[in-house]
């Protein structure tokens, strides 16, 4: 049984990759994927704690399942927004989505 530190380190690494991607990638779909990556890093934490935490029980895994379901729904909404944005701006580059300024 690997110690919990390895799981948490993996989750942190995944989160950082996701964060890096979300903040730097130009393609809006990659940005969305990066956000999903961060979400999954959180899920990994939930499952790790449910197995190896101080009061380990099955609630963490159930919570993880719920979280994945919500993430799936969120991706559906997110992709719909992306399509709407693409139709509107005719581009998938996040630098073109700059209406929120003075």
């Amino acid at each position, binding site marked *: 049984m690997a110690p919990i530190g390895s799981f948490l380190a993996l989750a942190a690494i995944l989160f950082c990759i996701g964060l890096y991607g979300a903040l730097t990638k130009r393609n809006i779909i990659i940005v969305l994927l990066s956000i999903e990556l961060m979400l999954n890093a959180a899920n990994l934490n939930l499952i790790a704690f449910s197995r190896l935490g101080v009061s380990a029980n099955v609630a963490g895994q159930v919570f993880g399942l719920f979280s994945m379901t919500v993430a799936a729904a969120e991706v559906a909404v997110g992709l719909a927004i992306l399509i709407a944005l693409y139709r509107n701006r005719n581009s998938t580059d996040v630098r073109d989505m700059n209406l929120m*300024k003075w």
Partner: protein
Amino acid sequence: MIAYAWLVPAIPLVAYLLLLALGRRVHEGVAAAIGVLATLISLVLSLMIFVDVAQGGGQLPYLWTWLTFGPGPGHTWQAGFEVNSLNALMLVVVSFVSTLVLLFSRGYMHGDPRFGVFYQYLLLFVFSMLGLVISPNFLQLYVFWELVGLCSYLLVGFWYEKPEAAAAAKKSFVVTRLGDVGLLAGIILLYLATGSFDYDDIARAIQTGGLQIHWIGPQGLATLGALLVFLGAAGKSAQFPLHVWLPDAMEGPTPVSALIHAATMVAAGVYLVARSFALFDASPVALDVVAYIGGITAILGAAIGLTQRDIKRVIAYSTISQLGYMMMGLGVAAYSAAVFHLFTHAFFKALLFLAAGSVIHAVDTQDLGRMGGLWRRMPVTASTFLFGALALSGVPPFAGFWSKDEILASTLAAGRPLLFALGMVAAFFTAFYIFRVFFLTFTGRYRGDRVPRESGWVMTLPLVLLALMALGAGWAGAPFTGYALERFLGEPSGASEAGAGPGVMAISTAVSLLGIGLAWLMYGERATSPEAWSRSLWPLYRLSFHKFYFDELYQAVIVRPAFALGKAFDWVDRRIIDGIVRLAAEATLAVASGVRRIQTGQVQTYGLITLLGIVALIAVSWSLLWGVRS
């Protein structure tokens, strides 16, 4: 009855409010009836009060506390009313003249679209004037003082569509305001020194020398206080050098001139000096100033009146001159002579104005050059005007003779031959100018183009009543009634009176007759041409005709510099003060337009900054926690 003296001003006030409620479309007859009735009730009450006072009724002021703002006697202000012989007399004069003027106005203002408003203003004025007269202290007097000033402004500018009337109203308000500032300063000074607004308290404090104020001695304080009060009186009573507003005030309707600018409001200044006579008596300097200002005003007004071509302006300058007489009388401590002259002057000057109003109503011009020969066509107006003119000139046995002579005799008795001479010359001028008006208006050939008709009874009845007073009012203070009025008024301490001896009477009668005779030669008989006189004396003529260039002088010395100063301040306000404000706004805008460029609209930038912020927060809180732990 005296306890109900407050009703005298209250009734015109109620009538005013009633007319105000009825609005401006009220029927002329209704407005006039309400006005005349209200003033008539006031007149009856005044007469009853007068009789009570004459029979030695109580003279205590009726006071109640108006305002308390601290412990001690100086921190309670009182309001109320008082009746003494002086203001009982004033009540009768004011309500009598008011009643007649309100009746006269029914005819004079007939057909004016703002007839009801005119009566409103008149009633407000009557209320204010009566309130002024029975005020027991300086503070309350000042309130009414400003109210009569306001009414004067409203009524002078009654025909405000005429630019001259609007300008005259403004001028009268501003010039009297100059004096009012002095009065207010004087009241505050006396209050600081004595802790009271009450005339009698102040007089007592002055007589006992209990004046306490650190930067000025008791004598200086009495002088300064008296002079400041006199400044207010001079503004209201059109004394030199603040006399310039009164002739312009003739732009108002003629009944207004008769009521406000001849009989009542302009006499308020004289009344004020008379009421606070004890204050003036404490300061010989102040009395001298009053006397000489009065003397100068008397001769100045009379000299200007000699050449004016507008009938009302001649009478206005005559008013200035006569008010000068009253001030001169007060200045030589002839208290009751001055009040006596105020009393008689109110009647005959109101008469002259109303008669002039009747003439103006008939011929529709104020230019003496377009009148003439009206004796036949307007016999009542003409004969009553003659009564007024004789009274003004001081021909025995008319009213002005007795009062003017008493003042002149008092100047002589006070050892002021210069003032006596001024008064005599002014008396000569007076007789000349008023009979110049009389002959130009009522004798000779009619030079106008409108057919004049005698006015109706509402206008001639007041004339007749006033003419009777112009004849008989002086007998109240004549030697053959034993100076009844003087005895009624009583002498305040320090006043000195001199009955006119036969010498003074003879001289003044001769001087008056001389003036009348000269006017007759010039304008009645045309034995000597006035044009030739004015040509040969042209520098004097021009001086008099242009009113000694006072308006031009004030324009150059005061008005223009004041406007220039105003322009300079305006420039400072616009360029510098507004500039600073605008600079602050522009600077903020400039900074903002630079700083707003941080907002890129890129979500990723915002995300990065948020991340950095979180990291920083975590780092800080962590280090703090570690700091606490270790």
